[in-house]
């Protein structure tokens, strides 16, 4: 199992009664799977990913990442993460940024150069020598995705990875992820609120609302019962009562 979460909870105390509780009873991701966590804004998707990576500390519960306790740095050795909000050094060129961050995983400059060229070709990137501060949102997101896929990892955690990308770019990146999955049996955990992004790709979906997983289903079950991921999502989140809208 790539990831196993049991009875994890985390409370954010805010002023008044406005505190937020995340409670995940059970979530697991097997090797080679493509799992999505879907939910409205503020439902706890990014918080869950940050807890998995020990960026936020869980109040209780157990998380096993790549067969180890997620608090050990070795658990992250073959994990790659793209946060929803990121900040790369602005005075770096794209190429320098990719080198600087992938060297944190002990890759050699020669290996990184080969991988950069491969990814630049797959992601249609021709601005490797442009400074990060001069990139558009889409370019910057593509560069961030290149950073994520630069090292040969086994588990990719992607938080809203297609923000700001156009359809062509999105397809190029999805094609790359598919080829990676077929060749190297990688596992993906993705959060998104753009349902069309994952309609064709996901094996398993988890729906999260107010910090709780309210439902999970395999793609085949969803197809059979609801026809599409969108219908499945709307069935659980669309409010039928106008008073609650």
């Amino acid at each position, binding site marked *: 199992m790539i990831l196993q979460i049991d009875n994890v909870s985390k409370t954010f105390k805010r002023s008044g009664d406005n505190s937020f509780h995340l409670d995940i009873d059970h979530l697991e991701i097997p090797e080679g799977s493509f799992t999505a966590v879907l939910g409205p804004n503020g439902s706890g998707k990014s918080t869950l990913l940050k807890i998995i990576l020990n960026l936020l500390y869980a109040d209780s519960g157990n998380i096993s990442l790549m067969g180890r306790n997620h608090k050990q740095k070795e658990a992250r050795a073959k994990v790659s993460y793209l946060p929803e909000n990121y900040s790369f050094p602005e005075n770096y060129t794209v190429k320098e940024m990719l080198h*600087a961050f992938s060297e944190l995983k002990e890759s050699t400059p020669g290996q990184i150069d080969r991988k950069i060229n491969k990814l630049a070709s797959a992601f249609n990137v021709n601005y490797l020598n442009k400074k990060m501060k001069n990139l558009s949102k889409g370019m910057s997101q593509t560069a961030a995705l290149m950073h994520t896929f630069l090292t040969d990892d086994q588990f990719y*955690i992607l938080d809203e990875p297609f923000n700001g990308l156009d359809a062509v770019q999105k397809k190029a990146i999805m094609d790359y992820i598919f080829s990676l999955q077929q060749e190297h049996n990688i596992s993906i955990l993705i959060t998104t609120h753009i349902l069309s992004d994952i309609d064709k790709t996901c094996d398993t979906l988890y729906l999260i609302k107010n910090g709780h997983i309210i439902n999970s289903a395999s793609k085949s079950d969803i197809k059979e019962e609801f026809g599409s991921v969108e219908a499945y999502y709307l069935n659980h989140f669309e409010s039928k009562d106008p008073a609650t809208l």
Partner: protein
Amino acid sequence: MIRFTVRTLLKNRVLWAWPGIFILFVGAIAVWGGISPAPSSSSYLIELGDIDLPAGMIINQIVSMVILITIIGMPTHFAESLKPERASLLLSKPISRTEFFFSDIAGVSIIYILYAAISVILLALLTIVHGILFPFQHVIALLIFLPLTLIAYYITIILFIILTNSYLGGVLLGYFLTGFSALFINVEQFMKMVKLFGLEDTYAVTIFKIAGYFIPSAAAFQQIMQDMFNSGLSSIDLSLFGYAFATCLPFLLLSYYLLQKKQF
């Protein structure tokens, strides 16, 4: 992680002002000034117009400028790294918070020593051109005690960056509090001065003395450096040296502890 820190710092243009100041100084003396051996010491004199000034006096002024620039320029990368947007990129790699913290200190120290070495080489070139051997005590002062002075400032600044989540808050509080450490190396004199104003409180004196061990004493390192410039290696006060090191530990350990607790 050390390589990442060093790479980031080498791209920090504010810090280029450090070697830049030394280049300007050496260039200016080479063109408009001169160098001559000091009659009664192993040091040298810097000729500015008709006046001959001891090298130590001039270098001390340049060093003060370098300290100010470095205090402003150095901690930017740490403040950036602590933002959740950057920290989540760094700490999602197989890097522990311990590694993150000490690699940063190590990277910063490497840059301090590198720029200090450039400064020494420039000054040595200037003296050698005039047929004077660059004094060994100046090499030690610049290569060891200037970086130590800066690290003492840096330790206080990173503590306040962790506490306030703000670069500006960290630099201002760090600068003033570490600057305050100058009072503690002359406690007795300070107390005599306080008594002149009719203030005498044994508790206050005790608290003041204890506080002296909790604020990194950049002033002590700077004092040793100045003594070396003026009086050579024999002037090193080992007890002051030990005190200066000891004062760096509490804030260093507190910063480390707070970083372990910090969530991103």
